[in-house]
């Protein structure tokens, strides 16, 4: 594998601090390659969301640089190749109806009306939300809003989708739909989540962050199976990795 040509996201010595804050990210070095499903875990305030905003060019690092699909991220251009699904759907969905929200990204890509329409319906069908197209966004349930948020990303056909706490506030059924949907939603995905079972199911690599730094990264079962490591960084070993002395009765 030609590593450099398949690199999707690279961060080199990236540091960032919000104004009036000591430091949110410190010396982040990270590479994510095409086809990977990467999970990022860590306690609240570890810097996961901040890193995503830097990766998409919304924030500019204080030092270091980020490259997306081998191009430096400047924040000045619209890059539909990378999509970010926010934790709170109400922050992501800002148009009057579902259809218009999903169509928003493709419209700004300069595509013609027919292609915009085709992609919009394709994305809605992909998340099983075609019947919601004409509904006002604020009439949807949390699960429906989450699915529509994902559709807004899918419609842009991105090479990378970043999911920030995707299963937060979802019921079991919707969570299962999400887990089934995520791996195939884009060539490369990054998922930040406190739902460690979701990370285990979906991701092929996991990165543990704490206090703005990358602590370690590697195989999800190995990293998350280390109870002492997880506990030291505000996490717990996922239930499915805990040896069971008494079998569950089914």
């Amino acid at each position, binding site marked *: 594998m030609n590593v450099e040509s398949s690199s999707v996201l690279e961060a080199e010595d990236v540091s960032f601090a919000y104004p009036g804050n000591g430091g949110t990210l410190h010396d982040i070095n990270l590479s994510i390659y095409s086809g990977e499903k990467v999970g990022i875990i860590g306690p609240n305030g570890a810097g996961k969301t901040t890193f995503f905003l830097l990766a998409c060019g*919304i924030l500019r690092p204080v030092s270091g640089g980020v490259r997306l699909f081998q191009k430096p991220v400047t924040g000045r251009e619209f890059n539909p190749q990378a999509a970010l699904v926010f934790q709170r759907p109400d922050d992501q969905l800002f148009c*009057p109806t579902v259809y218009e929200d999903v169509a928003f*990204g493709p419209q*700004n890509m300069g595509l013609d009306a027919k292609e915009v329409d085709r992609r919009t319906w394709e994305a809605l069908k992909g998340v099983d939300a075609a019947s919601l197209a004409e509904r006002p966004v604020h009439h949807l349930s949390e699960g429906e809003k989450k699915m529509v948020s994902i559709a807004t990303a899918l419609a842009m056909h991105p090479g990378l989708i970043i999911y920030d706490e995707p299963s937060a506030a979802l019921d079991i059924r919707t969570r299962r739909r999400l887990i089934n949907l995520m791996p195939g939603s884009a060539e490369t995905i990054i998922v930040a989540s406190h739902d460690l079972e979701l990370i285990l199911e979906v991701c092929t690599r996991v990165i543990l962050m704490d206090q703005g730094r990358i602590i370690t990264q590697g195989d999800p079962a190995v990293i998350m199976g280390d109870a002492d490591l997880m506990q030291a960084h505000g996490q717990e070993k996922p239930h499915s990795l805990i040896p069971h002395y008494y079998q569950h009765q089914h």
Partner: protein
Amino acid sequence: MSCNVPQTKTSVLHRMDPRFRLVGLFVLIFAYSFVSDFRLLGAMLIFTLMLFFISGLPARFIVQKLKLPSLIILVLVLILPFVSGQNTLLDLGFISLKQEGLHASGVIAARFLCIITTVMIVLHTAPLLTHVQAMRAMGLPWIMADMALLTGRYLEVLGCDLGRMQTAMRLRGLNASRPGLYMLRTRAWLCGSLLVRGLERADWVYRAMRLRGYGQNRTATLQFRATALDMAVLSAALLAAGTVMGLEIWFGL
């Protein structure tokens, strides 16, 4: 606080191009505000009733919408006959009913009823934000159009936030709280919290918009397509408005 449109059978008003609907509406209501001849006011009331039947909107919906605004105009309509005019119709001792005042009350009441009923009928045949998009398509500046669309989008969200905060306050004794400055301060904090939440949410909304290309190109407006029916209905509205205004001028000569 919803912009809900009542579910009803689709009428010719529902099927109209929103731009034509808006132009027709504004022409009609401004024409109504010009009229003071009672014969024409009567014709206006009949025309408004016809519009209501054409729209197919439930009567209960319209009555519900008229309740609050009617209360406000009622005060003025009740006071005017006793405070304005020279010709006394009825002398009640300390106050007297005046002809000009009664005439003015009738004019205001009829105009108000016709205008507000027409507005409610026409604007509730489509979601409110569709009308904003129609205005944008007709040249409303993009800053105002985008502001209006986002304002409408987040009204219910912030309304829910307010509801939750008020519930939380109530659970901690808000209704039993001390009156006076303490009560005012609690309300002020509620207001301040809403503003802070609004602004913090705005940061995220802008990020979401930028990530999907907002600000790079002017986002394409919703496509509206007019038909012969739209032209016909608008022409009818223009004719009605023109006739009413023309007759008003002629009767006044």
